[in-house]
């Protein structure tokens, strides 16, 4: 196939006019949901209910219902937390880092990815909160003046986590909302329903598409992207500190921060692709979320997957090279011990299968892509499982060795978190524009002035 690399490929396919773009994106909001929508929603809500019941019972009877116990004090709760925070990273990467890198193709998928970030961080935040055992006292995590005249421990990575995740959530939400303001205004001006109009008016804050405002708006977007970029890197770095700052063989490694960040982007992109494949099909957005988008994302998955693979190898190398026996034991045990099955699921899903993405044909084939990204999701979940559980289950004394087996409640909560995530995603697709209308209009063909600037009819 001949590709002309001297020209930029159009971001929006099919030569849509501006009004057509808007029509396409806003259509799901104007039409009543169909049967398929309700079927999808009821599946997601059922999963959510399973989670809610498990959670209710865990509240009532306490955390003894879960499988974690000495020596494995961290298990599904922390695994799920790291997994979901990781998923969140793709959104900010797409919306902020690709924005700073002037990657126009991001416009089609940014809104959706940002939404997924927010939902994923909600799911993530849930787990450390319930992991405390008495979540109604989680207010103690904040440094507030209290009658014990105690403060939180600012030198603990677990506290850094509280700050990192809550900041990340707030900033992502604000970033997302800022992007939505012009779209709310557009929706406000096109709707005929009085209720919808009131709601859109409130959220649009009275936006008038004024160029005097656009100027500050673009500046703000730039500043926010500039902040979100180091922020997203910091968040997973800090999450990795939860492990790396401890002195447990298998956790205490300097490679953790970059390794976690790469893994986060890897799993996040996989999740974004998983969901987008459905969304573009169901809402006929093939021209806005094009095959080129998916192709590019699959390339990112391939690249970050190899970084993760490199980290797996490097951990073993350092264990050998450092000459620390405990470290060597942990890693040999990881690959060949009682949890070897988990380790090899992780390696095959994260490192081996994504290699298929070297081929253009596979990168652009929906079924192949679907299988691989789901495997990547599974693999990345197991990565966190392997890191957390295998490092703990062989304590320093053989008398305190153990084998962690999750209980029904652990699975219930895991399913519940997926239920929560997909419920939010499904509700989102029908209530807000899943693609940024104003941003996509701005990168459509002929949307910007021609280069000799302002000559009429040029």
């Amino acid at each position, binding site marked *: 196939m001949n590709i002309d690399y001297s020209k930029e490929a159009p971001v929006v396919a099919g030569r849509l006019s501006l009004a057509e773009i808007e029509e396409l994106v806003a259509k799901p909001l104007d039409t009543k949901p169909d049967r398929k929508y309700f079927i999808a929603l009821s599946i997601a809500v059922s999963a959510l209910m399973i989670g809610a019941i498990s959670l209710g019972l865990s509240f009532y*009877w306490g955390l003894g219902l879960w499988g974690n116990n000495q020596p494995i004090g961290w298990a599904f709760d922390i695994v799920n937390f790291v997994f979901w925070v990781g998923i969140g990273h793709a959104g900010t990467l797409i919306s902020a880092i690709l924005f700073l890198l002037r990657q126009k193709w991001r416009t089609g998928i940014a809104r959706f990815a940002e939404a997924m970030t927010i939902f994923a961080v909600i799911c993530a935040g849930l787990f450390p909160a319930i992991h405390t055992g008495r979540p*109604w006292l989680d207010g103690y995590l904040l*440094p507030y003046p209290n009658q014990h005249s105690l403060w939180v421990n600012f*030198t603990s990575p677990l506290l850094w986590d509280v700050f990192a995740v809550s900041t990340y959530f*707030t900033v992502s939400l604000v970033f997302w909302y800022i992007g939505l303001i012009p779209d709310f205004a557009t929706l406000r001006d096109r709707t005929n329903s009085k209720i919808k109009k009131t709601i859109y008016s409130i959220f649009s804050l*009275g936006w*008038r598409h004024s160029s005097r405002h656009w100027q500050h708006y673009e500046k703000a977007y730039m500043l926010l992207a500039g902040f979100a970029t180091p922020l997203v890197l*910091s968040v997973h770095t800090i999450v990795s500190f939860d492990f790396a700052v401890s002195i447990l063989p298998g956790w205490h490694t300097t490679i953790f921060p970059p390794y976690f960040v790469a893994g986060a982007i890897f799993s996040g992109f996989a999740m974004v692709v998983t969901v987008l494949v459905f969304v573009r099909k169901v809402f006929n957005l093939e021209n806005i979320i094009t095959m080129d988008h998916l192709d590019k994302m699959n390339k990112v998955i391939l690249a970050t997957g190899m970084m993760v693979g490199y980290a797996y190898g490097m951990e073993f190398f350092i264990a050998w090279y450092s000459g620390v026996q405990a470290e060597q034991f942990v890693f040999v045990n990881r690959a060949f011990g009682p949890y070897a099955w988990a380790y090899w699921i992780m390696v095959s899903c994260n490192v081996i299968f994504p290699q298929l993405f070297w081929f253009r044909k596979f990168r652009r084939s929906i079924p192949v892509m679907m299988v691989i990204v789901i495997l990547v999701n599974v693999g990345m979940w197991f990565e966190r499982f392997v890191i957390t559980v295998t490092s703990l289950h062989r304590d320093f004394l053989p008398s305190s060795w153990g084998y962690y087996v999750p209980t029904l409640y652990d699975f219930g909560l895991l399913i519940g978190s997926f239920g929560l995530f997909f419920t939010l995603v499904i509700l989102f697709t029908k209530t807000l524009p899943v693609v940024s209308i104003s*941003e996509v209009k701005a990168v459509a063909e002929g949307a910007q002035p021609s280069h000799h600037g*302002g000559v009429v009819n040029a």
Partner: protein
Amino acid sequence: MHNNKLYGIAAIFDNPDKIIAAAKKTVEAGYSKFDVNTPYPVHGMEKAMKLKPSKLGFITLVFGLTGSFLALFFMYWTMSLDYPMIIGGKPFFALPAFIPVTFEVTVLLATLATVIGMITFFFKFPENHHPLHDTNYMKQVSIDKFGLVIESVDKNFEIEKVKDFLNSLNPISIEEIYYKEKETYSVLEPRFLTFLFAIALVTSGSTYFILNKLLYMTPFNWMSEQLKLNPQKPSELFADGFGMRNPVKGTVARGFMPYLAKGQNNPTELLENPYLITEENIKLGKSKYLTFCSPCHGNYGDGDSRLRGQFPNPPSLHSQRARDFKDGMIYHVIVNGQNSMPSYAPYLNVEERWAVVNYIRVLQRAKNASDSDIQFVKKENLNNASN
């Protein structure tokens, strides 16, 4: 329609090149109160409209730096000054460990300030009653057209001239935009006030419910109601029904002299108070009283127990009966207990018991101060002031 005021005259164009040219010409023609409305930011518009660069970055800078310093100073104050504690062998001021939180707070404050500053200060939003809203003009620029409005407040504004000028730019249409002049303060509308009131009610009500009721319900109270025995809890296991145990009979701890009136309800012989009421003695008594007696008797001896009905409320220590007690009688109650009140002898040594007695005397005198007491305190204060 025409008793309404004119906001401005708007022209609509159908492609980005035309709107850029129109903006340039408007500036050249000397209009300054005009605006361009486009469905998305059109490149080069700032230059065409001759807008000054956005100053938003300053807000970000100032608040970002404020965030860094606040966070760093706060951590320094809590961890090094207010409650210094060595954790993991780190120094009190562990700068590397403070970096993550400093960074997060910086980002948080900077973003929030940028966004809130932009919306309220630069945009003056929310503004859903702007004259441009709900006009045909707005509907079109919201979709795919490009509009330019020259406002009537511009110093060069003359209706006919502006219309001619706009026509010369060859737009697809021209519209006059009017607005109603009305003064309403939506903040004072009854609906809004009721809304505020309802919010206040719900927030305070739920806060009260959660803090005072919910946290004492099952299962939230399960951490405090465990199967183990707490002091001040009854026990079915022991014959005397007390959960709190005393040492085995005959045990004499160092400094604890055997008490002769043990077990008598109305001892015939009472001990004399061997301790003078000194400032130090009262201080000691106060601290022991607050630790051991105040849970039931209340901080000032009023009998206002903090135990939420887990133990019968004791009588006030300011009753005539208690005030008539000899010092030795209070001492006796401490050592011996009285009816449902258990003995506190194992927890207080002889000096501490008398100190508590002296402190109770202070409480009693303070609660029933005579005029001469008040005169005395006044004089003391005067003396202190003049010193």
